[in-house]
Protein backbone atom coordinates (compact mmCIF):
# COMPACT_ATOMS: atom_id res chain seq x y z
CA UNK A 1 0.00 0.00 0.00
CA UNK A 2 1.41 3.37 -0.92
CA UNK A 3 0.85 6.23 1.44
CA UNK A 4 -0.91 9.04 -0.36
CA UNK A 5 -0.07 12.57 0.63
CA UNK A 6 -3.02 14.88 0.94
CA UNK A 7 -0.98 18.04 1.38
CA UNK A 8 2.45 19.01 0.20
CA UNK A 9 4.14 22.32 0.87
CA UNK A 10 7.14 23.09 -1.30
CA UNK A 11 9.69 25.82 -0.53
CA UNK A 12 7.14 28.06 1.12
CA UNK A 13 8.31 31.50 2.23
CA UNK A 14 6.12 34.17 3.77
CA UNK A 15 6.99 37.76 4.60
CA UNK A 16 5.02 40.18 6.79
CA UNK A 17 6.26 43.49 5.42
CA UNK A 18 9.98 43.30 6.17
CA UNK A 19 9.80 40.38 8.59
CA UNK A 20 10.53 36.93 7.23
CA UNK A 21 7.91 34.72 8.89
CA UNK A 22 8.64 31.50 7.02
CA UNK A 23 11.66 30.49 4.99
CA UNK A 24 11.75 27.56 2.54
CA UNK A 25 9.32 25.34 4.36
CA UNK A 26 8.86 21.82 2.99
CA UNK A 27 6.17 19.75 4.61
CA UNK A 28 4.00 16.76 3.82
CA UNK A 29 0.81 15.54 5.41
CA UNK A 30 -0.33 12.04 4.50
CA UNK A 31 -3.89 10.85 4.22
CA UNK A 32 -5.32 9.95 7.62
CA UNK A 33 -2.44 11.31 9.70
CA UNK A 34 -2.33 13.71 12.60
CA UNK A 35 0.69 15.92 12.16
CA UNK A 36 1.77 18.43 14.80
CA UNK A 37 3.76 21.61 14.33
CA UNK A 38 5.85 22.45 17.37
CA UNK A 39 7.78 25.60 18.06
CA UNK A 40 8.08 28.64 20.26
CA UNK A 41 5.78 31.63 19.96
CA UNK A 42 6.44 33.44 16.71
CA UNK A 43 8.16 30.45 15.12
CA UNK A 44 5.66 30.56 12.25
CA UNK A 45 3.29 27.71 13.10
CA UNK A 46 0.14 29.74 12.67
CA UNK A 47 1.53 31.28 9.50
CA UNK A 48 1.82 27.82 7.95
CA UNK A 49 -1.87 27.15 8.65
CA UNK A 50 -2.82 30.60 7.38
CA UNK A 51 -0.86 30.01 4.19
CA UNK A 52 -2.73 26.78 3.57
CA UNK A 53 -6.12 28.44 4.04
CA UNK A 54 -4.86 31.43 2.02
CA UNK A 55 -5.34 34.01 4.74
CA UNK A 56 -1.79 35.09 4.03
CA UNK A 57 -0.11 35.39 0.67
CA UNK A 58 3.09 33.41 0.23
CA UNK A 59 6.15 35.24 -1.02
CA UNK A 60 7.17 32.14 -2.88
CA UNK A 61 6.61 28.42 -2.94
CA UNK A 62 3.75 26.09 -3.65
CA UNK A 63 0.97 24.45 -1.73
CA UNK A 64 -0.35 21.30 -3.34
CA UNK A 65 -3.56 19.86 -1.95
CA UNK A 66 -4.73 16.51 -3.38
CA UNK A 67 -2.59 17.10 -6.44
CA UNK A 68 -3.99 20.59 -7.05
CA UNK A 69 -1.94 23.76 -6.71
CA UNK A 70 -3.91 25.97 -4.33
CA UNK A 71 -1.33 28.73 -4.05
CA UNK A 72 -3.45 31.15 -6.11
CA UNK A 73 -6.85 30.19 -4.70
CA UNK A 74 -9.09 32.50 -2.70
CA UNK A 75 -9.78 31.43 0.90
CA UNK A 76 -13.38 30.45 0.11
CA UNK A 77 -12.21 28.25 -2.79
CA UNK A 78 -9.84 26.39 -0.49
CA UNK A 79 -12.76 25.56 1.80
CA UNK A 80 -14.67 24.16 -1.16
CA UNK A 81 -11.73 21.89 -1.95
CA UNK A 82 -12.11 20.25 1.47
CA UNK A 83 -9.83 22.13 3.86
CA UNK A 84 -11.32 23.53 7.06
CA UNK A 85 -9.45 25.82 9.40
CA UNK A 86 -10.29 26.24 13.05
CA UNK A 87 -8.26 29.40 13.52
CA UNK A 88 -6.18 30.98 16.23
CA UNK A 89 -8.44 32.72 18.73
CA UNK A 90 -11.37 30.53 17.59
CA UNK A 91 -13.06 33.38 15.73
CA UNK A 92 -16.56 32.19 16.38
CA UNK A 93 -19.31 34.60 15.37
CA UNK A 94 -19.92 35.95 18.86
CA UNK A 95 -23.18 37.76 18.05
CA UNK A 96 -24.89 34.74 16.53
CA UNK A 97 -26.38 31.63 18.04
CA UNK A 98 -24.48 28.36 18.33
CA UNK A 99 -26.84 26.88 15.76
CA UNK A 100 -26.24 29.73 13.29
CA UNK A 101 -22.49 29.34 13.67
CA UNK A 102 -22.77 25.64 12.88
CA UNK A 103 -25.11 26.19 9.95
CA UNK A 104 -22.69 28.75 8.52
CA UNK A 105 -20.00 26.10 8.84
CA UNK A 106 -21.94 24.21 6.18
CA UNK A 107 -22.22 27.32 3.98
CA UNK A 108 -20.51 25.65 1.01
CA UNK A 109 -22.87 22.69 1.05
CA UNK A 110 -26.38 22.43 -0.29
CA UNK A 111 -27.34 18.88 0.75
CA UNK A 112 -29.89 19.96 3.34
CA UNK A 113 -30.74 16.58 4.79
CA UNK A 114 -27.13 15.61 5.29
CA UNK A 115 -26.35 18.99 6.84
CA UNK A 116 -29.09 18.29 9.34
CA UNK A 117 -27.67 14.85 10.06
CA UNK A 118 -24.17 16.30 10.47
CA UNK A 119 -25.54 18.92 12.83
CA UNK A 120 -26.95 16.18 15.01
CA UNK A 121 -23.64 14.34 14.78
CA UNK A 122 -21.79 17.43 16.08
CA UNK A 123 -24.24 17.56 18.96
CA UNK A 124 -23.44 13.97 19.90
CA UNK A 125 -19.74 14.72 19.57
CA UNK A 126 -20.11 17.90 21.64
CA UNK A 127 -23.10 17.41 23.97
CA UNK A 128 -22.39 20.77 25.64
CA UNK A 129 -23.14 22.52 22.37
CA UNK A 130 -26.43 20.65 22.05
CA UNK A 131 -27.60 22.10 25.36
CA UNK A 132 -26.61 25.55 24.24
CA UNK A 133 -27.70 25.49 20.62
CA UNK A 134 -29.90 28.58 20.92
CA UNK A 135 -27.45 30.50 23.07
CA UNK A 136 -25.50 33.47 21.65
CA UNK A 137 -22.03 32.12 20.93
CA UNK A 138 -20.27 35.03 22.63
CA UNK A 139 -21.72 33.95 25.97
CA UNK A 140 -20.16 30.47 25.84
CA UNK A 141 -17.19 29.58 28.03
CA UNK A 142 -13.75 29.36 26.45
CA UNK A 143 -13.87 25.58 26.20
CA UNK A 144 -17.31 25.64 24.66
CA UNK A 145 -16.19 28.27 22.15
CA UNK A 146 -13.28 26.02 21.19
CA UNK A 147 -15.66 23.11 20.73
CA UNK A 148 -17.87 25.33 18.60
CA UNK A 149 -14.91 26.36 16.46
CA UNK A 150 -13.98 22.71 15.85
CA UNK A 151 -17.59 21.62 15.27
CA UNK A 152 -18.10 24.51 12.85
CA UNK A 153 -15.00 23.52 10.89
CA UNK A 154 -16.28 19.93 10.71
CA UNK A 155 -19.62 21.11 9.30
CA UNK A 156 -17.95 21.68 5.93
CA UNK A 157 -17.07 17.95 5.86
CA UNK A 158 -13.35 18.55 5.45
CA UNK A 159 -10.81 15.99 4.37
CA UNK A 160 -8.09 18.08 5.97
CA UNK A 161 -8.67 19.87 9.26
CA UNK A 162 -6.32 22.63 10.38
CA UNK A 163 -6.46 23.13 14.15
CA UNK A 164 -4.72 26.13 15.67
CA UNK A 165 -4.09 25.95 19.43
CA UNK A 166 -7.20 24.01 20.43
CA UNK A 167 -6.06 23.86 24.07
CA UNK A 168 -5.08 27.50 24.54
CA UNK A 169 -6.40 28.99 27.76
CA UNK A 170 -8.54 25.99 28.68
CA UNK A 171 -8.81 24.10 31.96
CA UNK A 172 -6.95 20.76 31.95
CA UNK A 173 -10.05 18.56 31.99
CA UNK A 174 -11.49 20.47 29.02
CA UNK A 175 -8.19 20.01 27.18
CA UNK A 176 -8.49 16.27 27.75
CA UNK A 177 -12.04 16.36 26.44
CA UNK A 178 -10.94 18.19 23.29
CA UNK A 179 -8.09 15.81 22.62
CA UNK A 180 -10.42 12.86 23.07
CA UNK A 181 -12.52 14.35 20.28
CA UNK A 182 -9.44 14.90 18.13
CA UNK A 183 -8.59 11.19 18.52
CA UNK A 184 -12.15 10.30 17.62
CA UNK A 185 -11.96 12.45 14.48
CA UNK A 186 -8.69 10.82 13.55
CA UNK A 187 -10.29 7.39 13.86
CA UNK A 188 -13.14 8.47 11.60
CA UNK A 189 -10.55 9.22 8.92
CA UNK A 190 -10.09 13.02 9.04
CA UNK A 191 -6.54 14.15 8.36
CA UNK A 192 -5.42 16.74 10.90
CA UNK A 193 -2.65 19.32 10.91
CA UNK A 194 -2.31 20.56 14.46
CA UNK A 195 -0.58 23.58 15.95
CA UNK A 196 -0.22 23.28 19.70
CA UNK A 197 1.59 24.96 22.59
CA UNK A 198 1.18 21.86 24.69
CA UNK A 199 3.79 19.93 22.72
CA UNK A 200 3.77 16.81 24.87
CA UNK A 201 0.02 16.32 24.68
CA UNK A 202 0.03 17.05 20.95
CA UNK A 203 2.83 14.60 20.18
CA UNK A 204 1.24 11.90 22.31
CA UNK A 205 -1.75 12.13 20.00
CA UNK A 206 0.08 12.53 16.69
CA UNK A 207 1.68 10.35 14.06
CA UNK A 208 4.45 12.77 13.16
CA UNK A 209 5.76 16.14 14.18
CA UNK A 210 7.64 19.05 12.65
CA UNK A 211 9.77 21.36 14.75
CA UNK A 212 9.88 25.00 13.70
CA UNK A 213 12.37 27.58 14.86
CA UNK A 214 12.19 31.21 13.74
CA UNK A 215 10.44 30.41 10.48
CA UNK A 216 12.70 27.48 9.57
CA UNK A 217 11.89 23.77 9.79
CA UNK A 218 14.46 22.17 12.10
CA UNK A 219 13.45 18.56 12.06
CA UNK A 220 10.70 16.13 11.33
CA UNK A 221 10.22 12.71 12.88
CA UNK A 222 7.73 10.24 14.13
CA UNK A 223 5.93 11.75 17.10
CA UNK A 224 7.13 9.01 19.44
CA UNK A 225 10.76 9.71 18.50
CA UNK A 226 10.32 13.43 19.04
CA UNK A 227 8.92 12.73 22.47
CA UNK A 228 12.16 10.97 23.34
CA UNK A 229 14.49 13.50 21.72
CA UNK A 230 16.80 14.89 24.39
CA UNK A 231 17.20 18.35 22.90
CA UNK A 232 13.49 18.72 22.25
CA UNK A 233 12.62 17.58 25.76
CA UNK A 234 14.71 20.41 27.14
CA UNK A 235 13.33 23.03 24.81
CA UNK A 236 9.64 22.28 24.52
CA UNK A 237 8.50 19.35 26.57
CA UNK A 238 9.60 20.67 29.98
Amino acid at each position, binding site marked *: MTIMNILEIINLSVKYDAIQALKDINLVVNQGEIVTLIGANGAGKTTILKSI*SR*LVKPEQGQIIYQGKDTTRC*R*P*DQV*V*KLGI*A*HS*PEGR*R*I*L*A*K*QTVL*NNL*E*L*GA*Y*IRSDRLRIKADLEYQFTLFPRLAERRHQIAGTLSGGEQQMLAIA*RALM*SRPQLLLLDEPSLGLAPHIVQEIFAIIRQLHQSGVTILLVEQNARLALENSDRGYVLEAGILKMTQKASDLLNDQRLREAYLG
Partner: protein
Amino acid sequence: MDFSLFLQNFLNGLSIGSVYAIFALGYTLVFSILGIINFAHGAIFTLGAYFTYALAGGKFGFNGILANAQLPFQLPFVMALLLSSVLSGLVTVLLERLAFKPLRARNADPLLTLVSSLGAALVIVNLIQYLVGAEIYTFPANIYGNLPEAINFGTATKPINIRTVQIIVFGVSVIIVTCLTYLINYTKVGKALQAIAEDTTTASLLGINSERLIMITFFISGFLAGISGTLVSSSVSIAGPYFGISFGLKGLAVIVLGGLGNIPGAIGGGLLIGLAEAFVPSDYSGYKDAISFGLLFIMLLVRPQGLFGKKLIQKV
Protein backbone atom coordinates in the same frame (compact mmCIF):
# COMPACT_ATOMS: atom_id res chain seq x y z
CA MET B 1 -54.20 70.56 17.85
CA ASP B 2 -57.39 68.66 17.24
CA PHE B 3 -57.36 64.93 16.79
CA SER B 4 -58.05 64.76 13.06
CA LEU B 5 -55.19 67.12 12.28
CA PHE B 6 -52.97 65.11 14.59
CA LEU B 7 -53.88 61.90 12.80
CA GLN B 8 -53.33 63.50 9.43
CA ASN B 9 -49.85 64.67 10.42
CA PHE B 10 -49.10 61.31 11.98
CA LEU B 11 -49.99 59.37 8.83
CA ASN B 12 -48.06 61.78 6.62
CA GLY B 13 -45.10 61.40 8.94
CA LEU B 14 -45.27 57.62 8.75
CA SER B 15 -45.35 57.82 4.98
CA ILE B 16 -42.28 60.02 4.52
CA GLY B 17 -40.58 58.32 7.47
CA SER B 18 -40.96 54.94 5.82
CA VAL B 19 -39.12 56.21 2.75
CA TYR B 20 -36.37 57.65 4.96
CA ALA B 21 -36.17 54.19 6.49
CA ILE B 22 -35.71 52.21 3.28
CA PHE B 23 -33.31 54.82 1.93
CA ALA B 24 -31.26 54.72 5.14
CA LEU B 25 -31.23 50.91 5.05
CA GLY B 26 -29.16 51.23 1.89
CA TYR B 27 -26.50 53.13 3.82
CA THR B 28 -26.76 50.70 6.72
CA LEU B 29 -26.19 47.59 4.61
CA VAL B 30 -23.01 48.92 3.05
CA PHE B 31 -21.82 50.30 6.36
CA SER B 32 -22.30 47.05 8.22
CA ILE B 33 -20.38 45.09 5.60
CA LEU B 34 -17.54 47.48 4.81
CA GLY B 35 -17.61 49.99 7.66
CA ILE B 36 -17.86 52.90 5.25
CA ILE B 37 -20.51 55.42 4.28
CA ASN B 38 -21.32 55.50 0.59
CA PHE B 39 -21.74 59.20 -0.12
CA ALA B 40 -23.01 58.46 -3.62
CA HIS B 41 -26.18 56.95 -2.13
CA GLY B 42 -28.07 60.24 -2.50
CA ALA B 43 -26.98 60.56 -6.13
CA ILE B 44 -28.33 57.06 -6.88
CA PHE B 45 -31.60 58.18 -5.28
CA THR B 46 -31.77 60.99 -7.84
CA LEU B 47 -30.77 58.67 -10.65
CA GLY B 48 -33.57 56.24 -9.74
CA ALA B 49 -36.14 59.00 -10.02
CA TYR B 50 -34.87 60.03 -13.48
CA PHE B 51 -34.76 56.42 -14.66
CA THR B 52 -38.37 55.92 -13.67
CA TYR B 53 -39.39 59.17 -15.29
CA ALA B 54 -37.77 58.10 -18.57
CA LEU B 55 -39.03 54.51 -18.46
CA ALA B 56 -42.59 55.61 -17.73
CA GLY B 57 -42.44 57.53 -20.99
CA GLY B 58 -41.60 60.97 -19.59
CA LYS B 59 -40.19 63.57 -21.94
CA PHE B 60 -37.09 65.58 -21.10
CA GLY B 61 -37.05 69.38 -21.35
CA PHE B 62 -35.15 71.94 -23.34
CA ASN B 63 -31.79 71.87 -21.63
CA GLY B 64 -29.11 69.24 -21.68
CA ILE B 65 -27.98 67.22 -24.65
CA LEU B 66 -30.98 64.93 -24.38
CA ALA B 67 -33.40 67.85 -24.80
CA ASN B 68 -36.81 66.68 -26.01
CA ALA B 69 -35.68 63.08 -25.88
CA GLN B 70 -38.16 60.39 -25.01
CA LEU B 71 -37.89 56.62 -24.95
CA PRO B 72 -39.66 54.90 -27.87
CA PHE B 73 -41.69 52.85 -25.40
CA GLN B 74 -43.70 53.57 -22.30
CA LEU B 75 -43.84 51.16 -19.39
CA PRO B 76 -46.66 50.98 -16.87
CA PHE B 77 -45.55 52.88 -13.78
CA VAL B 78 -45.08 49.83 -11.55
CA MET B 79 -42.86 48.18 -14.17
CA ALA B 80 -40.91 51.40 -14.62
CA LEU B 81 -40.44 51.66 -10.86
CA LEU B 82 -39.07 48.12 -10.59
CA LEU B 83 -36.87 48.30 -13.65
CA SER B 84 -35.49 51.66 -12.60
CA SER B 85 -34.64 50.31 -9.15
CA VAL B 86 -32.87 47.34 -10.72
CA LEU B 87 -30.93 49.73 -12.97
CA SER B 88 -30.02 51.85 -9.94
CA GLY B 89 -28.75 48.69 -8.28
CA LEU B 90 -26.62 47.84 -11.31
CA VAL B 91 -25.17 51.35 -11.48
CA THR B 92 -24.27 51.03 -7.80
CA VAL B 93 -22.50 47.74 -8.46
CA LEU B 94 -20.53 49.47 -11.23
CA LEU B 95 -19.75 52.28 -8.82
CA GLU B 96 -18.51 49.74 -6.29
CA ARG B 97 -16.17 48.35 -8.91
CA LEU B 98 -14.80 51.75 -9.85
CA ALA B 99 -14.81 53.75 -6.63
CA PHE B 100 -14.61 51.20 -3.81
CA LYS B 101 -12.98 47.97 -4.92
CA PRO B 102 -9.64 49.37 -6.12
CA LEU B 103 -9.19 51.12 -2.77
CA ARG B 104 -10.25 48.06 -0.83
CA ALA B 105 -7.76 45.92 -2.75
CA ARG B 106 -5.01 48.24 -1.50
CA ASN B 107 -6.27 48.30 2.08
CA ALA B 108 -6.79 52.03 1.80
CA ASP B 109 -7.93 54.18 4.70
CA PRO B 110 -11.77 54.29 4.94
CA LEU B 111 -11.52 58.07 4.69
CA LEU B 112 -10.18 57.73 1.14
CA THR B 113 -13.14 55.56 0.19
CA LEU B 114 -15.41 58.23 1.57
CA VAL B 115 -13.78 60.83 -0.64
CA SER B 116 -13.95 58.62 -3.70
CA SER B 117 -17.67 57.96 -3.14
CA LEU B 118 -18.19 61.70 -2.80
CA GLY B 119 -16.44 62.11 -6.13
CA ALA B 120 -18.66 59.47 -7.68
CA ALA B 121 -21.71 61.36 -6.40
CA LEU B 122 -20.55 64.56 -8.11
CA VAL B 123 -19.95 62.71 -11.37
CA ILE B 124 -23.45 61.22 -11.36
CA VAL B 125 -25.16 64.48 -10.46
CA ASN B 126 -23.28 66.47 -13.08
CA LEU B 127 -23.85 63.80 -15.69
CA ILE B 128 -27.59 64.05 -15.06
CA GLN B 129 -27.45 67.82 -15.40
CA TYR B 130 -25.39 67.53 -18.58
CA LEU B 131 -27.84 65.06 -20.11
CA VAL B 132 -31.24 66.36 -19.12
CA GLY B 133 -30.71 69.79 -17.60
CA ALA B 134 -31.60 71.06 -14.18
CA GLU B 135 -35.31 71.72 -14.44
CA ILE B 136 -38.03 70.16 -12.34
CA TYR B 137 -39.79 67.10 -13.71
CA THR B 138 -43.17 66.03 -12.43
CA PHE B 139 -44.82 62.68 -12.88
CA PRO B 140 -48.35 62.74 -14.34
CA ALA B 141 -51.04 62.70 -11.66
CA ASN B 142 -52.44 59.29 -12.62
CA ILE B 143 -49.24 57.22 -12.49
CA TYR B 144 -50.64 54.86 -9.89
CA GLY B 145 -53.84 54.37 -11.90
CA ASN B 146 -57.07 56.31 -11.71
CA LEU B 147 -57.22 56.66 -7.98
CA PRO B 148 -58.70 59.61 -6.13
CA GLU B 149 -56.23 62.34 -5.20
CA ALA B 150 -56.88 61.83 -1.51
CA ILE B 151 -58.74 59.45 0.73
CA ASN B 152 -60.81 60.67 3.65
CA PHE B 153 -60.27 58.54 6.75
CA GLY B 154 -62.48 60.75 8.88
CA THR B 155 -66.06 61.83 8.49
CA ALA B 156 -67.58 64.43 6.19
CA THR B 157 -67.61 66.95 9.00
CA LYS B 158 -64.23 66.03 10.45
CA PRO B 159 -62.16 65.01 7.44
CA ILE B 160 -58.79 63.29 7.77
CA ASN B 161 -57.51 63.59 4.25
CA ILE B 162 -54.46 61.57 3.31
CA ARG B 163 -53.10 61.80 -0.21
CA THR B 164 -53.42 58.46 -1.97
CA VAL B 165 -49.80 58.60 -3.07
CA GLN B 166 -48.69 58.83 0.56
CA ILE B 167 -50.56 55.61 1.32
CA ILE B 168 -48.98 53.86 -1.66
CA VAL B 169 -45.53 55.08 -0.66
CA PHE B 170 -46.06 53.74 2.84
CA GLY B 171 -47.36 50.41 1.54
CA VAL B 172 -44.43 49.92 -0.82
CA SER B 173 -41.96 50.80 1.93
CA VAL B 174 -43.52 48.29 4.31
CA ILE B 175 -43.27 45.58 1.65
CA ILE B 176 -39.62 46.43 1.03
CA VAL B 177 -38.72 46.41 4.72
CA THR B 178 -40.49 43.07 5.16
CA CYS B 179 -38.69 41.47 2.23
CA LEU B 180 -35.35 42.83 3.39
CA THR B 181 -35.86 41.60 6.95
CA TYR B 182 -36.69 38.17 5.61
CA LEU B 183 -33.65 38.21 3.32
CA ILE B 184 -31.25 39.19 6.10
CA ASN B 185 -32.56 36.86 8.80
CA TYR B 186 -33.83 33.78 7.03
CA THR B 187 -31.83 33.23 3.85
CA LYS B 188 -28.37 31.86 3.25
CA VAL B 189 -27.28 35.12 1.62
CA GLY B 190 -28.53 37.06 4.66
CA LYS B 191 -26.70 34.82 7.09
CA ALA B 192 -23.53 35.11 5.04
CA LEU B 193 -23.91 38.91 5.08
CA GLN B 194 -24.22 38.88 8.86
CA ALA B 195 -21.12 36.72 9.07
CA ILE B 196 -19.16 39.17 6.92
CA ALA B 197 -20.47 42.08 8.95
CA GLU B 198 -19.16 40.47 12.10
CA ASP B 199 -15.82 39.18 10.85
CA THR B 200 -14.65 39.08 7.23
CA THR B 201 -11.80 36.69 7.95
CA THR B 202 -14.06 34.18 9.64
CA ALA B 203 -16.54 34.49 6.80
CA SER B 204 -13.85 33.58 4.28
CA LEU B 205 -12.83 30.57 6.40
CA LEU B 206 -16.44 29.40 6.17
CA GLY B 207 -16.20 29.41 2.39
CA ILE B 208 -18.07 32.68 1.89
CA ASN B 209 -16.94 34.61 -1.16
CA SER B 210 -17.00 38.07 0.37
CA GLU B 211 -16.42 39.93 -2.91
CA ARG B 212 -19.55 38.37 -4.37
CA LEU B 213 -21.58 39.28 -1.32
CA ILE B 214 -20.22 42.82 -1.34
CA MET B 215 -21.55 43.09 -4.89
CA ILE B 216 -24.96 41.80 -3.79
CA THR B 217 -24.96 44.30 -0.92
CA PHE B 218 -24.26 47.22 -3.22
CA PHE B 219 -26.95 46.02 -5.59
CA ILE B 220 -29.55 45.93 -2.82
CA SER B 221 -28.36 49.27 -1.51
CA GLY B 222 -28.68 50.84 -4.96
CA PHE B 223 -32.08 49.23 -5.45
CA LEU B 224 -33.25 50.82 -2.19
CA ALA B 225 -31.88 54.23 -3.18
CA GLY B 226 -33.53 54.01 -6.60
CA ILE B 227 -36.91 52.97 -5.29
CA SER B 228 -36.91 55.67 -2.61
CA GLY B 229 -35.98 58.26 -5.24
CA THR B 230 -38.96 57.23 -7.32
CA LEU B 231 -41.34 57.11 -4.35
CA VAL B 232 -40.39 60.58 -3.15
CA SER B 233 -40.56 62.10 -6.60
CA SER B 234 -43.95 60.49 -7.25
CA SER B 235 -45.18 62.23 -4.13
CA VAL B 236 -43.59 65.63 -4.86
CA SER B 237 -41.54 65.94 -8.04
CA ILE B 238 -37.98 65.53 -9.28
CA ALA B 239 -36.52 68.81 -8.12
CA GLY B 240 -33.42 68.69 -10.32
CA PRO B 241 -30.17 66.71 -10.28
CA TYR B 242 -29.22 67.86 -6.80
CA PHE B 243 -32.39 66.77 -5.11
CA GLY B 244 -30.92 63.55 -3.79
CA ILE B 245 -28.01 65.27 -2.10
CA SER B 246 -30.04 66.87 0.68
CA PHE B 247 -32.04 63.67 0.99
CA GLY B 248 -28.73 61.85 1.29
CA LEU B 249 -27.69 64.05 4.21
CA LYS B 250 -30.99 63.43 5.92
CA GLY B 251 -30.42 59.71 5.45
CA LEU B 252 -27.15 60.14 7.32
CA ALA B 253 -29.03 61.81 10.16
CA VAL B 254 -31.37 58.81 10.21
CA ILE B 255 -28.62 56.21 10.50
CA VAL B 256 -26.71 58.09 13.16
CA LEU B 257 -29.95 58.63 15.08
CA GLY B 258 -30.78 54.93 14.93
CA GLY B 259 -27.26 53.66 15.52
CA LEU B 260 -24.72 53.08 12.74
CA GLY B 261 -24.98 49.71 11.01
CA ASN B 262 -28.14 48.83 12.90
CA ILE B 263 -31.11 47.69 10.79
CA PRO B 264 -33.95 48.25 13.30
CA GLY B 265 -32.20 51.54 14.09
CA ALA B 266 -32.43 52.72 10.49
CA ILE B 267 -36.14 51.91 10.41
CA GLY B 268 -36.85 53.53 13.78
CA GLY B 269 -34.70 56.55 13.00
CA GLY B 270 -36.42 57.03 9.64
CA LEU B 271 -39.89 56.93 11.14
CA LEU B 272 -38.87 59.25 13.96
CA ILE B 273 -37.46 61.91 11.64
CA GLY B 274 -40.44 61.56 9.30
CA LEU B 275 -42.87 62.07 12.18
CA ALA B 276 -40.90 64.95 13.67
CA GLU B 277 -40.96 66.76 10.34
CA ALA B 278 -44.65 66.09 9.79
CA PHE B 279 -45.53 67.97 12.96
CA VAL B 280 -43.72 71.12 11.91
CA PRO B 281 -46.54 73.63 11.25
CA SER B 282 -46.84 74.53 7.58
CA ASP B 283 -45.94 78.17 8.27
CA TYR B 284 -42.55 76.99 9.44
CA SER B 285 -41.94 74.25 6.89
CA GLY B 286 -38.61 75.87 6.04
CA TYR B 287 -37.38 74.60 9.40
CA LYS B 288 -38.02 70.92 8.64
CA ASP B 289 -34.36 70.17 8.00
CA ALA B 290 -33.44 72.00 11.18
CA ILE B 291 -35.65 69.53 13.06
CA SER B 292 -33.88 66.46 11.65
CA PHE B 293 -30.41 67.80 12.24
CA GLY B 294 -31.40 69.22 15.62
CA LEU B 295 -32.53 65.73 16.64
CA LEU B 296 -29.26 64.39 15.36
CA PHE B 297 -27.32 66.95 17.37
CA ILE B 298 -29.17 66.14 20.58
CA MET B 299 -28.73 62.43 19.98
CA LEU B 300 -24.99 62.79 19.52
CA LEU B 301 -24.80 64.70 22.80
CA VAL B 302 -26.83 62.35 24.96
CA ARG B 303 -26.57 58.96 23.28
CA PRO B 304 -23.76 58.85 20.72
CA GLN B 305 -24.31 55.16 19.96
CA GLY B 306 -27.77 56.01 18.60
CA LEU B 307 -31.27 55.05 19.66
CA PHE B 308 -30.90 51.34 18.99
CA GLY B 309 -27.14 51.05 19.13
CA LYS B 310 -25.52 49.12 21.90
CA LYS B 311 -22.81 50.71 23.95
CA LEU B 312 -19.47 49.42 22.87
CA ILE B 313 -18.15 47.22 25.61
CA GLN B 314 -14.48 46.53 25.43
CA LYS B 315 -13.64 43.02 26.51
CA VAL B 316 -10.50 42.83 28.53
